[in-house]
Structures are given as C-alpha cells and as structure tokens.
C-alpha cells in the first residue's frame, strides 16, 4: 500500500476580479512507505496548495487523495491521525513558551502532558535544542529555533506521513544543516514517509529518493534524482539538478518565482 496517492487532483481559486488561478492541474503522484519524495518548484507553482490539500486544509475540486488507502476528503479525521506537517512559517502562539505550544499541540492528538513531556525532552535533545530555552516565549527564539520546535511538534504525534513545506526556507546555514540532519534522522529512526516541497535543489537531491518538478500547478517529471538529470542530458553531459530544472521548465527557480510575483 502506498503512503500517499494522488490521482488527477485539480484545485482552482477565484480571485477578486473574476480571474481563476489553477493552483493544481491534474496532479498525480505517489509516495511509497518509508520513501522521501521531493517536489521542486518556484514560488507560486502550487507546492503549498498541494500540501494544504494533503493536510485536509483545502478541498480539491476534483481527483482522489488517499493516505495509506484512506480517502482524505471523505475521511479527514482518519487521515489526520496518520500525518503531520511543517510549513515554511513556524506558526505558534508567540506569547506562549515552546513547551506550552508543544503540550497544547500534543493534546489535540490525545497525548496527555504526562505522556508528552519525556518525549518532548527526547526530541529536543535530538535536534540540539537547549531544554532550558523551552520555557521561553516563542517570540524570544530565533527563526531557526522556532523551526526546530515546529519539527518537534510534528514528530511528537508520531506521524507515518510527514508533509514538509519548505522547512528550511529563510534559515541561516547552520540551522538549515541542523534541520536537514533531523529530517534524515526522522526518516531512518521513525520509519515515516515524507513529502518535501522545496525550491532548494541541493536539499532535494540530498534528502529525496525521488524528485518531481512542479510548475504552474503541474508536475512535469517525477523520478530518482540521477534518472531525472540523465533525462535532460545533452551531448552526453549529465546536468546538475538546477540545470535539469531549467531544461525542464525553461526558467531557473529564481526566474520562475520572479515571474509569478
């Protein structure tokens, strides 16, 4: 059974002046159990909408979304028990401490404070987060530290499917490396399947078993990084992932993002 399977998923949004934006255009993809699949795409390509559809936060217009064989649109509660998400914005109650936020987050999944506290300590140690700082308000923590707490919040509920939406965007190089190392650890130690949306080529290549390229709500290709690069080889030269992205889309990630803006 696949951890995640999407078939022909469409989603459009109406803008104020009657303009319709097609955020997802016939998306089909699957993530195997224990697999890490990366989706590379510029800003506005539909990556976040894809994650929101999978998180049951946006209803698709058409298509099928299944998590471990369960229809995510018809049975959202069953699906919600199996997954968690980390987004580019580490959304927390900023006045509350990291510990208070984590305890609150775990209770929504039926995990009591008594059960959660030792687990929180263990996770914080694993991600190199000083336990003493867990009692400080979130607003006192750096973005990198907040993002680590966001990862801890997701992991605390032991999801079998993790949705990571640009988890390292905007982080300093050190925090980025820490978070990436932690994602590797989640994969090996927790047997989770991961969908990672990013516009960082190196991150996708390093962390993912398969990588897809997403532009204008469509997935243009989804293969192992080496196969994907070989597909766009010219005159026997295998390009790097960035060149592959350019060859597939006609833009660099930056150009494609700028075009959207």
């Amino acid at each position, binding site marked *: 059974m696949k951890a995640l399977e999407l078939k022909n998923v469409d989603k459009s949004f109406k803008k104020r002046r009657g303009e319709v934006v097609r955020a997802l255009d016939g998306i089909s993809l699957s993530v195997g159990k224990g697999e890490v699949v990366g989706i590379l795409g510029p800003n506005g390509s539909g990556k976040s909408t894809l994650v*929101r559809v999978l998180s*049951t*936060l946006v209803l698709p217009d058409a298509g099928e979304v299944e998590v471990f064989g369960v229809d995510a649109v018809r049975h959202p509660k069953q699906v919600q028990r199996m997954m968690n998400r980390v987004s580019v914005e580490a959304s927390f*109650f900023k*006045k*509350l401490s990291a510990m*208070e936020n984590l305890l609150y987050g775990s209770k*929504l999944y*039926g995990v009591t404070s008594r059960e959660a506290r030792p687990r929180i300590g263990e996770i914080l140690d694993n991600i190199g987060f000083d336990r003493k700082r867990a009692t400080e308000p979130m607003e006192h923590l750096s973005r990198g530290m907040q993002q680590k707490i966001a990862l801890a919040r997701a992991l605390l509920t032991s999801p*079998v499917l993790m949705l990571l939406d640009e988890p390292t965007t905007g982080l300093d190089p050190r925090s980025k490396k820490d978070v990436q190392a932690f994602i590797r650890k989640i994969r090996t130690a927790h047997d989770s399947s991961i969908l990672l949306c990013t516009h960082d080529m190196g991150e996708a290549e390093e962390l993912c078993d398969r990588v897809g390229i997403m532009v204008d709500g469509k997935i243009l290709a989804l293969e192992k990084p080496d196969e994907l690069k070989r597909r766009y080889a010219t005159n026997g030269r295998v390009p790097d992932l960035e060149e592959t992205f350019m060859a597939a889309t006609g833009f660099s990630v930056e150009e494609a993002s700028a075009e959207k803006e």
Partner: protein
Amino acid sequence: MRGTVKPLWLTEMVAVWGYVQRNYFLTKRYFMWEVVWLVYVTMNAMAITFIGAGAGEFGARDATEFMTFLLVGALLWNYMSVLFDVLSETVSWERWEGTIEYTFMSPSSRVTHLLGMGFYAVVYGILQTALTLGVCYLFFDLDLSRANYGGALLVLAVASVSLVGFGIVAAVLPLLSPEKGQQVSYIVSSVLLLVSGVYYEIGVLPGWMQAVAVFSPVTYALEGTRDALLEGAGLAELWESIRVLLVMGVVFVPLGIFIFHLGERYAKRTGKLKRSG
C-alpha cells in the same frame, strides 16, 4: 504517540483540556491587560447602576430596585459579551498566528474544539462577573435582601449553553475575515442587547422587537436571574425560564456548530485558512 491507543472519547477529553489550558495560558500571559479590562467592565457596570441611583431625581418610585435591575442587566450583558469575545477572539487570534491550520488539521473534532473554548469562556465569564458584582456590592445600596443566589446561578448555567451556541455563530466571522470578522460579530451581540430587555422591560419595545425577543436566550436569562435576585424566586417559579433556556440550548448549540461547519467548509474550499498575520 504511536502505539498508545486510547478510546476516542478519552482522546477528545484530552483535547478539550488542551483547548481550556491553552486559553488559560494566554490569559495568564496577558494578566495585566486582563486586570485593565476588569477595571473597565466594573466601571461600566457602575456607571449603568448610577443611572438607577439618579432615577430618583426624575420621580422613580424605587431607585434601589431600579439600580439592582440595571446592575443585573449590566452583569449579564458583560457575561454574554465575555462568552462571545473569548470564542471569536480566540478564532481571530488563531488566524493571525497561523495556528488555526494546525488546529484544523488535528484529529480532534470541531465539537471538541468549540466546546473546549466555550467551557473556558463560561468559567472565565463567571469569575469576571462575580468580581464585578462584588465590587458593585460595596458601592451601592442594592436590594438583594431576598436574593436566591443558587437559583440565579442555575439560570446562568443553563443560559450559558445557548449563549455558547450564539458565540460559536459569532466565531465564524473571524474565521472568514481575520481583519474585520470580529468587529462584525458585534452585530450578533448588539441585536441581543437591543431586544432582550437588558436595561429596560421588553414591554417598552415596539411589537416586532418583542417578537424577536422571544427567540433571544438573554431575554429568559434576564427574566430568571432578576426573579431570583430581586424577588427571591424559587426553582418552581424559575422553571419556565429554565425550561425555555434548556430547549434553546438543545437548538442553538448544534445550530452554532452546524453554521461553523459551513464556514469551515467554505474556508477550505476557497483557501481562506492561510495565515494572514
């Protein structure tokens, strides 16, 4: 955690406690602002009660009774406002912080979510109202010699159920618009203020407003608490108000949750849950 299997009712109870505890933490973090707000609410109740004190100058027969009548109205109005504010403000807050997405993607049910917030609002509202009553008691010569406090509390407790239902309806608005939704939610409370006889007898209203008042739980809550506090009415005399409030609770809570569900579906269809702050 994986491997820990609890019955559904227990996971939902843990989640209810999570919502209550979260709101408590937030209140604690803004404690000084809560004190400032309590001072405002108390002064507001006192100012309204002074209208009663001044009514004697205009020939009112029993200024003391009128003062008590007004104070009960002011306290109940404040209590209802607290319920509405806690519910809609929390949704508004969650929209700004972006945590609403994490709440909505958690497996705890919407009923658990809304009733958890509602329960906290009731406890917070009762404490605030009791403190305000205590202060006003020191300042005014109130006519509470025959008061049946137990009866008044019972009426308030039963009324809280349907008021939470109304509060849930008001909380839909900030879900759809974090910028203006909460302000628009005041429309719900202002309609209740106008028609329910908070500061006057319903009999002074035009006929069509009196017809609207029949559907307001505040009307029966005021009737019951005033009878209990001013006349010392017992359970048998309060039963009519309590009976109507029970029926309203049975209708308004599911109705509020249904309307919130429609709002949530709309937000999920149009992608409105995205962080706005």
